[in-house]
């Protein structure tokens, strides 16, 4: 691919009007590269073939911002400065921005967004495969609100279907391919509310395996397929209370079951479907921690190899489910390493298919409350501290930028999450903190008086400081005398400030990026995500679209005469 681009440069320059004008910058590599890009695009023709195969790859929680972090990380891992890197799907010719909100939520959740992509309609947050009339948790209403997914449509056309995820295979995104449920949490029967007669999500997956709609299933979530008195191959217990062992039942249907990297590697991929791979009791491991399990790219390779045996073609849904989870943790290191696993999975899908007959869509369901600080120099390690811009050179200065508190900060932070600089102090801790603050303040005032050339300013400062301490004490007094009934015993004030941070700490794989608002789990955000596409009718992805438009392009591409 890269070779073709480079070879095209020479041809490109001789034939453009810009070069004919003899501009002083025309030999600049930025200029010649862009000229060659232009030539490539002038040669493009829309692919209006009917799509034999469709592959929808979703990196959960990988909005435009998160994706930037992964792009730079992956580039830096390969010896680049990073910003110039191009991830596998970023080389796709077509792109749109996707508006991800749910009908009742500005900030979307994965089940509402997955239903939009798979069924072509937006719906409420937290429901799967049902329309907007169903309130989350209203079990009885689900049946009436049931919708069909792209899986039903392609299966009717004789195509094979595969579902792959690093999350539980009963989790929101994969569930949207085969299930309807008033609540995404109804992953097995033990999670159904009292009196609910609707089927749980795992049992619906089994039904689709049994009826021959779904052929390949690879992911986590083993516990939802096993009874609660059964211990699995990794010593974890099942969750089902109806006594059904869906793994054994699948085996009696002729499904080949695998549960770790060894049994997965031993699969004869030419021996056909169905295949059921459940590699963890809950979610599969983060790529950074992965042991004893196949990678996402390996699962994609296996799925495509099996599904390609169908002459009618196939539909494959792939989810990198844990980019989202690492973001929820506020841990950028695992976010980007799972992001790279997604990049590799897309590259594998591209490698194993033909763009003439296979529509490949890479997207995300929603973004997170991730944000990027400035002003950081070129090649700045993306998980690390923000270093200055070198005015005379290219690469960053290696000198941390300092905030107004005199402390360095990382390039990436989160608006909320466990990395919050604000922490809850127990009551006695709070009083200690105030004492500490007070002592430090006195010490500080002393320093200031001695060294300051403007005595008034120090007075101003002392007054401000004394005011803060007084306010804190007042708040504290309330809690101690029980004036504020809402503060239970042992609870204290939420206070905090940033602390010193080294590059070694910031780039540690377990580092939690600083955040503002304290929340144990960082949140999704309503920001746009990108849709990258190649293959038949990929050119329909253009501009800013509603997320449910994705279904309509897949549907058109699969059924066009």
């Amino acid at each position, binding site marked *: 691919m890269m070779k073709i681009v480079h070879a095209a440069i020479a041809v490109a320059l001789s034939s453009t009007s810009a070069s004919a004008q003899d501009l002083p910058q025309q030999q600049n590599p930025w200029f010649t590269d862009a000229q060659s890009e232009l030539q490539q695009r002038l040669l493009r023709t829309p692919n209006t073939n009917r799509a034999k195969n469709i592959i929808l790859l979703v990196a959960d929680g990988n909005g435009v911002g998160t994706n930037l972090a992964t792009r730079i990380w992956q580039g830096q891992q390969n010896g680049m400065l990073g910003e110039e890197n191009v991830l596998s799907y970023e080389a796709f010719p077509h792109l749109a921005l996707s508006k991800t909100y749910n009908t009742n939520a500005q900030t979307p959740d994965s089940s509402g967004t997955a239903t939009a992509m798979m069924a072509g309609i937006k719906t409420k947050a937290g429901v799967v495969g049902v329309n907007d009339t169903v309130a989350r948790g209203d079990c009885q209403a689900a049946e009436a609100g049931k919708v069909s997914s792209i899986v039903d449509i392609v299966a009717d056309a004789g195509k094979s279907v595969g579902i792959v995820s690093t999350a539980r295979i009963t989790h929101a995104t994969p569930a949207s391919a085969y299930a309807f449920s008033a609540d995404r949490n109804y992953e097995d029967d033990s999670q159904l509310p009292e009196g609910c007669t609707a089927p749980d999500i795992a049992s619906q997956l089994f039904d689709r395996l049994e009826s021959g709609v779904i052929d390949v299933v690879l992911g986590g979530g083993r516990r939802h397929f096993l009874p609660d008195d059964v211990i699995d191959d990794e010593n974890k217990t099942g969750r089902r209370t109806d006594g059904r062992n869906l793994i054994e039942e699948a085996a009696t249907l002729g499904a080949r079951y695998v549960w770790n990297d060894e049994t997965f590697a031993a699969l004869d991929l030419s021996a056909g479907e169905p295949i059921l791979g459940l590699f963890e009791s809950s979610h599969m491991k983060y790529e950074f921690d992965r042991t004893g399990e196949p990678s996402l790219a390996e699962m994609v390779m296996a799925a495509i190899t099996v599904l390609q045996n169908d002459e009618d073609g196939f539909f494959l849904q792939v989810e990198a489910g844990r980019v*989202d989870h690492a973001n929820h943790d506020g841990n950028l290191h695992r976010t980007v390493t799972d992001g790279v696993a997604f990049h590799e999975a897309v590259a594998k899908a591209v490698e194993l298919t033909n763009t003439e007959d296979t529509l490949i869509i890479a997207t995300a369901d929603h973004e997170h409350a991730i944000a990027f600080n400035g002003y950081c120099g070129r090649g700045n390690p993306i998980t690390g501290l923000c270093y200055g811009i070198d005015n005379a050179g290219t690469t960053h200065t290696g000198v941390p930028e300092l905030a107004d508190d005199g402390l360095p900060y990382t390039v990436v932070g989160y608006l909320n999450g466990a990395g919050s600089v604000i922490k809850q102090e127990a009551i006695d*801790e709070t009083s200690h903190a105030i004492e500490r603050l007070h002592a430090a303040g006195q010490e500080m005032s002393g320093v200031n008086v001695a060294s300051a050339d*403007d005595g008034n300013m120090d007075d101003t400062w002392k007054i401000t400081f004394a005011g803060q301490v007084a306010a804190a004490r007042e708040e504290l007094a309330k809690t101690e005398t029980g004036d504020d009934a809402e503060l239970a015993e042992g609870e204290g004030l939420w206070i905090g400030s940033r602390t010193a941070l080294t590059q070694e700490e910031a780039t540690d794989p377990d580092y939690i990026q600083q955040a503002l608002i304290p929340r144990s789990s960082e949140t999704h955000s309503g920001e746009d995500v990108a849709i990258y596409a190649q293959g038949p009718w990929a050119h329909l992805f253009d501009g800013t679209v509603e997320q449910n438009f994705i279904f309509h392009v897949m549907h058109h591409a699969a059924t066009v005469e």
Partner: protein
Amino acid sequence: MRQRSSKAVLDLDRRGLMLAVISGTVSLRTLARESASNDIVLLRDLYNKDLSFSDRALSSEGKRLSVTGYMAPPLKAESRFFVLTKRPMAVCPFCESDADWPDDILAVYTKRIVKVLPYNAKMTVNGVLQLGGVKDAENGFYSKVRLTEATYRRGA
């Protein structure tokens, strides 16, 4: 007018300096405590990548050591037990019906009733390392590795 704005800027600088001094005070105190206690290990140092016990863990079995991490919200009030995790326990209320424990956790049995620390405050636990699977008779919690007779403090 002009003077006032330059004062405001200086004020901000002073404030920044003061916060730095506060954090400096804290870290100096922490340093002093650390040098007094024995070696501090990270939770991840107890495990190999395949989740088997590391040489470090095997050689420390039965000995007292200090481990840093975060206190998971306790299962039960007024107990002498909590779980130490590598990163704060994050449960997305939208995405999960319950919390899954990570594989690499440490069960901590404390000398005194547990006083809960904020979920996002780094902490250090000192206790006697015990290896091997044990199910707690009282709360049913299964652990592969534990610190017993433990004391703990906020900070790393």
